[in-house]
């Protein structure tokens, strides 16, 4: 018997006596549903915020390890509370809005980067834990929704760059736009291969399909590679941190930001690293489906895979230099795009073979 996490929340609410559905039959059900959804959304927000904190802590420690340093070790045991101290500091900063910026867009841009990210955390099927499926959204088009949400943050970066009225930010924004175009298309085309194989846009069905057959990363190595690189560019970390490129454009699109708004951009980077890891393990490595032979631990299995990817991304971040803009665009259009199209042809062959045509 499998239940969704929302049913679990509903069950708990009913158990402690909050059950609107019995009072006004047609509308009460709706009210109950909204309350359950809100609680679910809150849960995922808290979970996402916590994982971001964990990822930042891991990043600092891991980076320090690779660089033969100790890393944060003063605040709390093993420096675990360092991030909370940093966050408190950021809250305490003055919210500076420079004179010549476009105040509305300047204020708005960080949210445009962060909110879609948090929303896309809602769409991932987190697998099962014991009897309960941790799935918040189970509509037919979750994959499309993820892509749609992931397309919004670059626009936020571009707006931030233009609204700042600073030449460095402007260059950063232009780079963000150029970069967005070069990776987004190969990324989507490589996802088409997944959709062709599984025949669905539903992330849960995609991960279940892989559990029944074989992880798509093995079936479509080229698509996996292209998608991995595209996700890496999506996060805008070294070697693809062109919009930010600290040593060239000072801090790129977020030069003028400080305090909490800067903090939101900063969290956004790490949030997208972990989201990218979750997404890539869901789509290509069977995500939250059961561990072979051990049912009921899919959630843990997903986290393990996601953290392996996170470590991989962080290691790449620490060890590579930044690629040049024009070379990156060349790379995107001349290598990634053709490779992703080859991947589609390859997928066609697989699909035909599966249907016994070949």
């Amino acid at each position, binding site marked *: 018997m499998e239940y969704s996490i929302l049913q679990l929340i509903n069950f708990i609410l009913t158990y402690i006596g909050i059950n609107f559905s019995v009072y006004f039959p047609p509308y009460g059900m709706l009210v109950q549903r909204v309350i359950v959804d809100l609680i679910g959304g809150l849960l995922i927000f808290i979970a996402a915020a916590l994982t971001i904190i964990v990822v930042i802590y891991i990043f600092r420690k891991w*980076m320090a390890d*690779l*660089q*033969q*340093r100790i890393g944060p070790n003063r605040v709390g045991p093993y420096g675990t509370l360092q991030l909370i101290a940093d966050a408190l500091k950021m809250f305490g900063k003055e919210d500076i809005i420079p004179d010549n910026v476009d105040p509305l867009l300047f204020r708005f841009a960080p949210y445009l980067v962060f909110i879609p990210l948090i929303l896309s955390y809602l769409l991932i099927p987190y697998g099962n834990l014991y009897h309960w499926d941790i799935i918040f959204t189970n509509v037919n088009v979750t994959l499309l929704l993820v892509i749609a949400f992931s397309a919004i943050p670059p626009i936020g970066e571009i707006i931030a760059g233009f609204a700042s009225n600073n*030449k*460095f930010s*402007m*260059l950063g924004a*232009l*780079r963000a736009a150029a970069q967005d175009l070069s990776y987004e298309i190969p990324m989507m085309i490589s996802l088409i291969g997944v959709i062709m194989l599984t025949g669905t846009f539903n992330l849960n069905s995609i991960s279940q399909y892989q559990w029944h057959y074989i992880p798509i990363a093995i079936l479509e190595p080229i698509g996996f590679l292209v998608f991995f690189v595209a996700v890496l560019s999506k996060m805008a970390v*070294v*070697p693809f*941190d062109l919009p930010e*490129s*600290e*040593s*060239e*454009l*000072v801090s790129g699109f977020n030069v003028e930001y400080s305090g909490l708004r800067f903090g939101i951009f900063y969290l956004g980077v790490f949030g997208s690293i972990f989201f990218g890891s979750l997404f890539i393990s869901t789509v290509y490595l069977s995500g939250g489906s059961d561990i072979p032979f051990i049912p009921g631990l899919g959630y843990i299995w997903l986290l393990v895979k996601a953290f392996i990817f996170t470590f991989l991304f962080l290691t790449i971040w*620490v*060890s*590579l*230099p*930044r*690629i*040049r*803009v*024009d*070379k990156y665009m060349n790379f995107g259009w001349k290598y990634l795009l053709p490779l992703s199209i080859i991947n589609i042809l390859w997928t066609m062959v697989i699909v035909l073979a599966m249907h016994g045509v070949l």
Partner: protein
Amino acid sequence: MEEKIIEVNFGPQHPSTHGVLRLKVKLKGETVLSAEPIIGYLHRNAEKLSEFNYYASNTVFMDRLDYVGNHNMELGYVMAVEKLADIDVPERAVWLRMLFVELNRIASHLVWAGTMGLDLGMITPFFYTFRERERILQLFEMVSGARLTYNYISIGGVYNDLPNEFDAKFNEFVEDFSSRLKEIESLFKENEVFIQRMKGIGILPPEVAKSYSITGPVLRASGVNYDIRKVSPYLYYDKVDFDIPVSNGMDNYARFEVRFREMEQSLRIVKQVYGKLPTGEYQNPLYRKSGLINIKGKGESYVRTESPRGEFGVYVVGDGSKKPYRVRIRSPAFQNLSATNEMVKGSKIADMIATISTLDPVFGEVDR
């Protein structure tokens, strides 16, 4: 749509201008049309200040010129004064000077390697190079008591003899430095992205380099075999074996390559020097402590040495008093920086940053 040319000020507060360089850059999109270096943000008047102090006090100002290659700066000035006032230096002191100057060259190039990595967006090599530099700094600290401004080489010799625990530390450093150097080099060299960022970027043909009177590793990377240590040997450079690394690449990668080979050669020199270190005085007894104040010089002298950045020249004029009449410094980093525009014209912003970092300017010396 008409393409607009934007003018951007890179620096002086910019993370990768190695201090306080300001570049007036004309950009067309990402392409640099021209870059005009503007200096003077770290001007501390070292030349003029030297006229108001005793000969011996001025080494302090020299320390603050090139603050990553301090021993070389001290050496140039001290040798000029010794030439002016006819001061003998004991043999051991000369060898000691050579030892520390070469160690300092390694330390300086290590700083360069780390910051070049930072300019390209690699954070990790920085920590590796600074770990090695730290061990050299510990050696310096042992003899001079300071980690940045040593004031170690003094007129008539050196400030202090080697302490007892120096030997163990030094041998430990020399033993594994060459393998550590290979490790650091592989962090850069075995990286495809790094090579793409460096090869064929920032071309400086030898004729242009000569016309801007560029010296040091930058010139040698353009294929000109010119090193003061070989051309007109000072100290005892004619008594040790070493090669001058030269590359014909003319680009950023060649400069990278030349500096790493130079570190290897410096290590070679350091090993030989430590083996040849004679016993005896480390300081001319006449110029110890209060003797230093009484140095008088008349006439003029010019000494050129090979600092980590190139030909470092000091011109001292004395009028017979205890203070120099005029001190003039030929700064290699300043000369090298003057070719910036030639090297970055037409390249991308990212390449401009990489090219400036391979020029390795230190602004204490550029602005003096």
